[in-house]
Each structure stands twice: as structure tokens, then as C-alpha cells.
């Protein structure tokens, strides 16, 4: 076995152990882009359909519909800068925002958006589960 084969085998082992691949990062990033595309285009219903169920429910309080509430937040969005996928969880850093996603049977859905870092504490998110 040459060194290239050993490197490939080790990378495969790490990918299996960590469940991480570039294809997964790409699909998570696409889901975030679709969500912010809907927000940018003022398609509230479409944006809410890309939220995790509990995140959508969280926006539908006090008689306000999710489709209106999501647009009222004026989420900044931006271009994807960096994406991390670990298991069924993902974080997509955008130029003006950070979004967290969870992989459901139907695909990646947003569970946290409009998020700002708070040092050692969890991000504070406008949209959360």
C-alpha cells in the first residue's frame, strides 16, 4: 500500500467517524441560500417552509403568522463565507449573518437565523427553536 492509498484510507476513516463530507456542506449551504433568497424576495410562506417546525411555531405567536413575522425581522443574510457540518447539524456563516440548520428526513431546515456571537455563550438568534 503506497502513502497515497494510506492517506485516502485515513481520510475515509475520519469521514466515516465524523460523518462529514464536502457534499454535505454544499447541501447545507444551498438550504441556507434558498432560505435567505426567499426572505430577500419577500416570499414569507416559502421562507417559513424552510424553517424547522419548532422554529416556525416560535414565529407564529400572538396571532401573528410566520410568513409575516419572518419578513418583519429584516434578516441581513449575505454571501456564504464558511460552512461546518457535524452529524445532522450545520452552521453556515454568511457575510452579515450566521445560520444554524438541522437535517430532517426531508432535508436541511433552518433552526437558527439572524444569529450573533456572544463569546462563550450560545449565539443569540432572531429565529430559534
Amino acid at each position, binding site marked *: 500500500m503506497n502513502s497515497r492509498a494510506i492517506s485516502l484510507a485515513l481520510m475515509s476513516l475520519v469521514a466515516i467517524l*465524523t460523518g462529514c463530507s464536502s457534499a454535505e456542506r454544499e447541501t447545507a449551504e444551498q438550504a441556507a441560500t434558498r432560505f435567505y433568497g426567499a426572505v430577500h424576495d419577500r416570499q414569507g410562506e416559502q421562507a417559513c417552509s424552510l424553517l424547522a417546525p*419548532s422554529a416556525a411555531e416560535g414565529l407564529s405567536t400572538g396571532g401573528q403568522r410566520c410568513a409575516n413575522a419572518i419578513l418583519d425581522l429584516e434578516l441581513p443574510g449575505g454571501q456564504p463565507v464558511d460552512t*461546518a457540518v457535524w*452529524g*445532522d447539524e450545520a*452552521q453556515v456563516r454568511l457575510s452579515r449573518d450566521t445560520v444554524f440548520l*438541522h437535517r430532517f428526513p426531508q432535508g436541511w431546515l433552518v*433552526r437558527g437565523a439572524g444569529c450573533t*456571537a456572544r463569546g462563550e455563550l450560545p449565539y443569540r438568534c432572531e429565529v430559534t427553536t
Partner: protein
Amino acid sequence: MKNFVKNNALSLFFLAAFLLSLVGQSFAGNADANQQRLAEGGAPLSWVSYVTSSDFTADVAENWQSEYLQFLLFILATVWLVQRGSTESKKPGEEGGESDAEQKTGRYAESGSPAWAAAAGWRRSLYGNSLGLVMGAVFLLSWLGQSVSGQASYNAQQLAQLEDPVSWGEYVVSADFWNRTLQNWQSEFLAVLSMVVLSVYLRQRGSTQSKPVGAAHDTTGVEG
């Protein structure tokens, strides 16, 4: 077949116990993980997805590394350290690697001795330390596996809690990694300590891990 089972009953018993426990752990772990995922607004995992996940791998690897470390240290410590009266110890005065005659190596090898016990040079040294080396290698590989899968599991949890993931280097100095590691090590070392000390005073009739029931407490290195 009947003879095979009889002659290998001890190995077969522990192999069956290991496999049943591992399968049991996979189902219990899957149910536990799914409860947490649902509470965090996520989707449950199938059994197949769970047993190939970093969560399951980390849980298995962290226990394996501590068990192999326990046996590695026990194997090495009993070369040099003694406990008067213990079945797990050599007699005081016998500390060390012992002579070729005592170990039946080199020209003292017998007709049934393994070939490398009679061989000269590195082969005799390698074979003479092969048990410790294999136990040590499995320990290190399991610990490495724990660190890699533990990082993945930790990062998934971090993201689920809306926190940043960490690098492998950050993870192996993290509280999570050392908490998982040390909580296993302390229990293994306590178990060895208990076995070394209790075998001085207590007996289990018929067991190789006990002195004969009537043996004196200060009789060392005698098994029943």
C-alpha cells in the same frame, strides 16, 4: 464441536457477553439520543444511522480505551511492583523481567516453546513484550478513535445548542474529552486496586483469580 466449545468456553462466554452488551448499548443509546434530539427540535435517528454515528463510536471507543489501558498498566506494573499476599502479584524479590531460564527463552526454550521465544535479537524482544505492545496499540488506537468521534459528537451538540464547533486540537484539551476519559480511567483503576487488595483476604473457591480457600493471607502469587 462439543470439544471446541468445552475447550474455549471462557472465550466464548465473554464473546457472547460482549456482543449482547454492545447490541443492548446500541438500542439504549439510540433511544436516549432520540429523546435528546426531539427535545432540541430535531428528527429522530434510525438504529442503523445511530450505530454508524459519531455519538455511538465515541461512547464505544471511550470505554474500550480505558479497558485496554487498565490491562496494559496491569501487565506492565506487575513486572516491577508486587503486593504481598495477592494472587495478582509475583512474590516479593521476583521483581523485574526475570532470567532467560525463568522465562524459558533463548537456549532455555523448550520443545513446545513459541519459535520466537528461542530466536535471538529483536524477535525474542518483540515476542517477549508482544502482549503489552498489542494492548498498548489497541489502547492508543481506541483513544485516538475516541478523540476523533468525540470531536464530531461534541461539535454536533455544540451546533445543536447554537455554539461554534471546535478543532481536533481544541477538543483534545477540552473539559468534555478529559471528563469522558478520566471518568473511565478512575473506575478501571479502582477495579484493579480492589482485585489486588481483596484477593489477599477474600477467596472464590475454584477460581484462577483466587487463592485456595485455605491458603494463608500472606501467600503470594498462588492461584486456586
